[in-house]
Structure formats: structure tokens, C-alpha cells
């Protein structure tokens, strides 16, 4: 399997891994998984005045999944909260040069981010 340099860089040193303190004001979380694809993703957002201040993630998945979750966490910070509903797996694929067969895994990133806003978790 080939990986873009950006995927390798983000997997070697993801910057937003972890959890936010439970007492964080404006904390919301969402997760999604697909056992058949062996992928699980969880995001936690700190939202203040409708704006995402801080994002943390955890992921059990391939390097493309981890890198895409890290990129998503970075991009969401500073965005209106509804941006979490508009994460686009295909855009992540293009940016990180992810092969098409990994699209199903990246769709779980969309689902996990959206679940932070809707308060639902998706499991397949």
C-alpha cells in the first residue's frame, strides 16, 4: 500500500488525538464504526457561541483513516458548528490521495463528525 507524504506525516504525529476533559463547557461528541471494515472513529468538540473551539479525535483504523480524522479535527476548529455536518469524505480522499477502496472507511469520519451535532452514533 502506498501512502502520500501527508498521510505518513499525520500518522507519525497526529496533533489532535485524545479526549477533552469531561467538565469542558460546550462539549459534544460523536462516533461511528463499521466492523466489517474494521474502522471506528470518535470526535469530541468544544463549542462556544456556535463556533467549534477545540477538536479531539480517536480512531481505530488504517493510516488513511487516522490521517483523515486528524485533518478533519484540524479543519473543524474555528468553524461554525454546522461545519461538522459538512465533512466531505471525497474531499478528504482527494487531499490525502486516498485510494477509492478506502472510501467506506472515510465515510465513517463524515458520520462521526455529523453525530457530534446530531447526538447520534452510527454503527454498521
Amino acid at each position, binding site marked *: *500500500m502506498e*501512502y502520500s507524504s501527508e498521510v*505518513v506525516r499525520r*500518522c*507519525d504525529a*497526529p496533533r489532535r*488525538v*485524545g*479526549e477533552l476533559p469531561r467538565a469542558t463547557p460546550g462539549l459534544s461528541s460523536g462516533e461511528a*464504526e463499521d*466492523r466489517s471494515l*474494521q474502522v*471506528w472513529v*470518535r470526535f469530541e468538540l468544544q463549542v462556544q457561541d456556535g463556533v467549534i473551539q477545540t477538536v479531539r479525535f*480517536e*480512531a*481505530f*483504523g*488504517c*493510516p488513511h483513516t*487516522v490521517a483523515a480524522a486528524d485533518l478533519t479535527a484540524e479543519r473543524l476548529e474555528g468553524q461554525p458548528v454546522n461545519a461538522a455536518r459538512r465533512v466531505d469524505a471525497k474531499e478528504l480522499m482527494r487531499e490525502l490521495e486516498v485510494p477509492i*477502496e478506502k472510501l467506506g472507511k472515510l465515510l465513517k469520519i463524515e458520520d462521526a463528525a455529523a453525530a457530534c451535532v446530531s447526538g447520534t452514533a452510527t454503527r454498521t
Partner: protein
Amino acid sequence: MRRREIYLDYAATAPLDPAVAAAMTDCMTREFANPSSVHDPGRRARRLVENARAQVAARVGAPAGRIFFTSGATESNNLALQGVLRGGRARPHLVTSRIEHKSVLDTARALEAAGVAVSYVDCDAGGRVNPHDVAAAIGPETALVSIMHVNNETGVIQDVAAIGAICRERGVWFHVDAAQSAGKVPLALGDAAIDLCSLTAHKLCGPKGIGALYVAGGVLLAPQIHGGEQERGLRAGTLATHQIVGMGAAYELADPAAEAPRLAALRDRLWDALRAVPGARLNGAAEHRSPHVLNVTFPGVEGESLRLALRDLAISAGSACAADSPEASHVLRGLGLSDPLAASSLRFSVGRFTTEDEIAAAAGRVAVEVPRLREVAKSAPRWCSV
């Protein structure tokens, strides 16, 4: 910082021994003639081929005249299975196991498509095929049993002596894929109840692209490649003299009695270090294993991410021949591992040029990367690690 590369993938292939390279270079530059030619240069090349045949035969305890050169163990496995079962015999049934190399399993499936019945025997949780299960699978229509000597993913040694004895008693030919064991685990084909045995050079510090099939006297095989009388009509094609010379040199250099204790000590030292990683578990029976292969599961770590994190270590998820497949290892699933656990497993294999320093450095890298990746998936659901 660029890390030092450490090669621990000898079960996939081994570096060419300098002495083998020297023998091959000498052959390529001096003795280029076709060994089937009757002129003097051709006769000299023929002598090189026959010397190599004797070297290979001596290492596996077989008469030289029963060794037939092929392009490698994959071709040898194809020739053995198809040569017997497409040979017009009246008994169209093959018995093999679910944990064989793809070159056996895919050939078995091709034979099934051609109307041959195939029985697949399971292994136990330790990766061993029970000879009684093989006996139970043999029927009146069985022509051939094919069981590997050493499993390429787990290093577990199968009881080929017991299985061979059963086959002999039942009047069934027995094929052994010894690609992973020849030259590493003692093998005396002339004394064993083995009728066909696949060998390769490149896992023994020899060249790629050359192997052999041992065919016991009286075994009838239909050739699979046509177009010449080379190898007594069993395998057509101009003999690759330099490759054959390389294989002969590699088999002469290999000395399991001397090398196996050192490799086993390196393997055990690696396991002693890796078992300190929380949750690490050994795959395959501890008491029946080749000296060079170690297969370890690290639960809670996604396999592809682990291999990327450890890319400075030349190690495998399983068979190199299936490295591009997204499927979990059929061998580890055969041992009862779930897909996540099978995917979280790594095969380490040591060889002639592996050093103690490399073992220590590799174990150190794993001890850093496994906990780091577990932190990335710290709250992951239980299915990720069971």
C-alpha cells in the same frame, strides 16, 4: 530522523549470500552455454547443473536423480498437484489443509473447478494439522495428500513423518511443500514417507526464480510445461544454469545443524522482549516451531497502521504472497483468530545475517509504537481488540 532499516523478513525472501553471488557470477561470465548442447561448452554447463543437483539432493537427503529443477516452489507445488491429479489417474481426490500456502490452495481450487474433489483439513489452535484428521479425510478416491512442512506465517512444523506413514499405509502419494523448511529444519527425503517435495532457493540465501521438485521413484507426473525434453521431459525449458548453480551453492552453504540453534536463540530473544508489550500473544504452538519464524498479535492496534509505524522494520503481516490482499490471513483465521486480531499480527523472521543488536532494536521499536497507536484508539470498542 531516518531510522536504520532492519531486515526481519527472511520467511518472505533472504538476501543473496555473497558466496552464492560469486558462484553465479562466475557461471554467468564463463559458462553461458546451453547445458542441453552436446559440444564442449554445453557439456561443461551440464556438469555445473549436475553438480548443483547433487548439492541440493545432499542437503535434503535425496538421490540426485530425483531432483527436478523448476522456477521455484510455486511452480513445484503446481507441478506436484496438477501433475498427479491431471495425470489421468482414476482417483480424482486431493486432501490438503486450510493453512497451506496460496500456491497450493489456489491450485487446489483450480483443480476443483476442473472436477477434482478436494478435502480441506483444519488445524488446531496451535496451528498443527492432526494426522488422524488427514487419515479420516483419505478415501478410496484419494490420489494425493499435500501438507506443508513448516507454515510460512506461523513457523509451526507439521508432523510430516506421521502423515507420510498414514499415506504410505493407505497407498496415497504424499506431497510436502518444504519451501519454508528446507535447509532450516532437518529433512531426509530418502528416509521419509514423502513422495513429492517442493523446494526453493531464495529463502535460503539463494537466487529468486529457481526451485526444485523432489519426485520419488515410481511417482507418475504429467508435465505442466511442454516444449522440450529438459529435466527428463518433466519440465520443458532451457535450464537457467546460473540460477541452478546459485541454488546448489545455497543448499551446500545451508547447515541447519549449525545455524538452527543460533536462529532459535535470536527468535526466542525477540519473543522474550516482545512479550513485555502488554497483551502480546504468540501465534502457533510453542513446542513445534521452526527456528526462524515468530508470529505475534498485538491486540487493540490496527494492523495496517502498525506496519506503517514500523516501516523501518522489514516485517510482514503474513505471507508476502498475499501482502496486497485486504483479507485477513487465512492461516491466522485457521488458528481461530478474529479478523481484527489476525490483522493486528506481525510475522518476524530471522536469518543468516540477523544480529542480536537488530533484534534488540526491533523489539524496542515495537515497544514504542504499539502503546503509541493504542493511545490513538484508547476508547475504541471491545471488538477492536478481541
